[in-house]
């Protein structure tokens, strides 16, 4: 039953994802990509659970590596997206004035 319930969530989220961003202007393609890339670092949550499990050594090692990789993905992804979007914003104000 658990599997059915999880698959349910999967299917609904995929449809939601398609609906959310069906129309995105070309200007935002790169930020959208790097922003959603940062979200894919959510795997960090799984990595935390494994790195902190305190049991099996191998699971801790794998988890710690995974925490480092996923954090890089999350922190880097959000920061670089923000940097890009700040450039877009600056321009908008400039052209209005």
């Amino acid at each position: 039953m658990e599997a059915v319930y999880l698959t349910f969530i999967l299917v609904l989220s995929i449809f939601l994802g398609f609906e959310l961003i069906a129309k995105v202007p070309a200007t935002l393609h790169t930020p959208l990509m790097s922003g959603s890339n940062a979200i894919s670092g959510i795997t960090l949550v799984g990595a935390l659970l494994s790195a902190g499990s305190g049991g099996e050594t191998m699971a801790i090692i794998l988890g710690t590596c995974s925490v480092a990789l996923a954090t890089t993905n999350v922190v880097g992804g959000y920061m670089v997206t923000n940097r890009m979007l700040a450039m877009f914003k600056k321009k908008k104000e400039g052209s209005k004035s």
Partner: protein
Amino acid sequence: MNIELVINFSYVLSAALFIFGLKMLGSPATAQKGNLVSSAGMFIAVVITLLNQSIIDYQWILIGVIIGAIIGAMAARLVAMTGMPELVAVFNGFGGLASLLVGWAAWYLSGNTSFTIVTIILSVFIGGVTFTGSLIAWAKLSETISGKPYLFSGQRVFNSILLLAIITIGVMFINEPANITYLYTLIALSFLFGIMAVIPIGGADMPVVISLLNSYSGLAACAAGFAINNNILIVAGSLVGATGIILTNIMCKAMNRSLGNVLFSGFGAVSTTLGKIEGEVKPISPEDAYFILEAASNVVIVPGYGMAVAQAQHVVKELQELLEGNDCEVSYAIHPVAGRMPGHMNVLLAEADVPYDQLIEMDDINPRMELMDVAFVIGANDVVNPAARDEENSPIYGMPIINVDYANTVFVLKRSMASGFAGVDNPLFFAENTRMLFGDAKESIGKLIREFN
């Protein structure tokens, strides 16, 4: 029990924040706020996870987070905007590898029912393919290896056998979950498959590959979510998977090719049976180009990957200002697949402070092309190749292009007469109204600017 409830409700909250964030990323006015909203969602998800009672040791988490945060922050701060495609590729790869490791670790931590094993296999496979695929994409983008499609005979047969082997090993692993050798084999084969999948794809098709890998990195997180029974991974992962697919689709449409065609047939494989192109190449000096530009009242600038390579976006902006000071209307025509990732040109021009309402999409600029005195092509090739429109035999026939050849005069800034990434000859360079400005784009524009001053 109570803590568990709090954690799961917080996951619902962060899922909602991701959804809002993505929605806001879809419009220029709210995009930056959207990114912050989505990062708040991530922050909540991570912090609340630390409350989980199954976490009893924080030392390793701390080490991992510190290392990752430092690398991520440094990379995000230091990367040049021209290096964005490579950075996105690397981050994708990291995300994929992280999901692979989560799936792998789940083998030690979970009960290993058949369902869990299937999900572990999926996260290891998708994560592994994302990882090595992104590394190859990175190497091609940074030109560590050649951007040309790498093809050998029997490639499809080899890949099919490889895929079959992965499935077989997977089934054996399900039957004998205690045997970790199967898992190791799966990891190795997935790595190999990722390499094989991206290596036949040419540099010009990289926008498709990057968005597809982006989608995979989400799906890998999603599979890892199944492996460890975690809702937020599934929701966030599938949202990313969907956005990646949408971008991939937009890129494929912009090249008038199906996804299968991009993935399985390297551009270079098409044998060109083009007739001999008539006409001759007419070079022009910056001085003469200046006289034409000075008299022009409508100029459209068409940037391509060459602008990124030459890092010419700032001098382009300077030229734009000089032209505008000379009562000339300047616009930019952006092809959806110009550059090496979706929206590549927009990012570079934004860095140079070009207002985004001056960047015009292909379908909007084409009807106006005949009114343009000068079309100024900087390092673009295939996206302005009239053969895509006129030559049925051309390998890129059917790809929508920016019709620069309809403008009065076309300037093409180009380093040499070498053909574009697709390896297709471009009749534009031989056209009656085309003038070639040979040399490094940045230097050539610099010379033009000096003529103005």
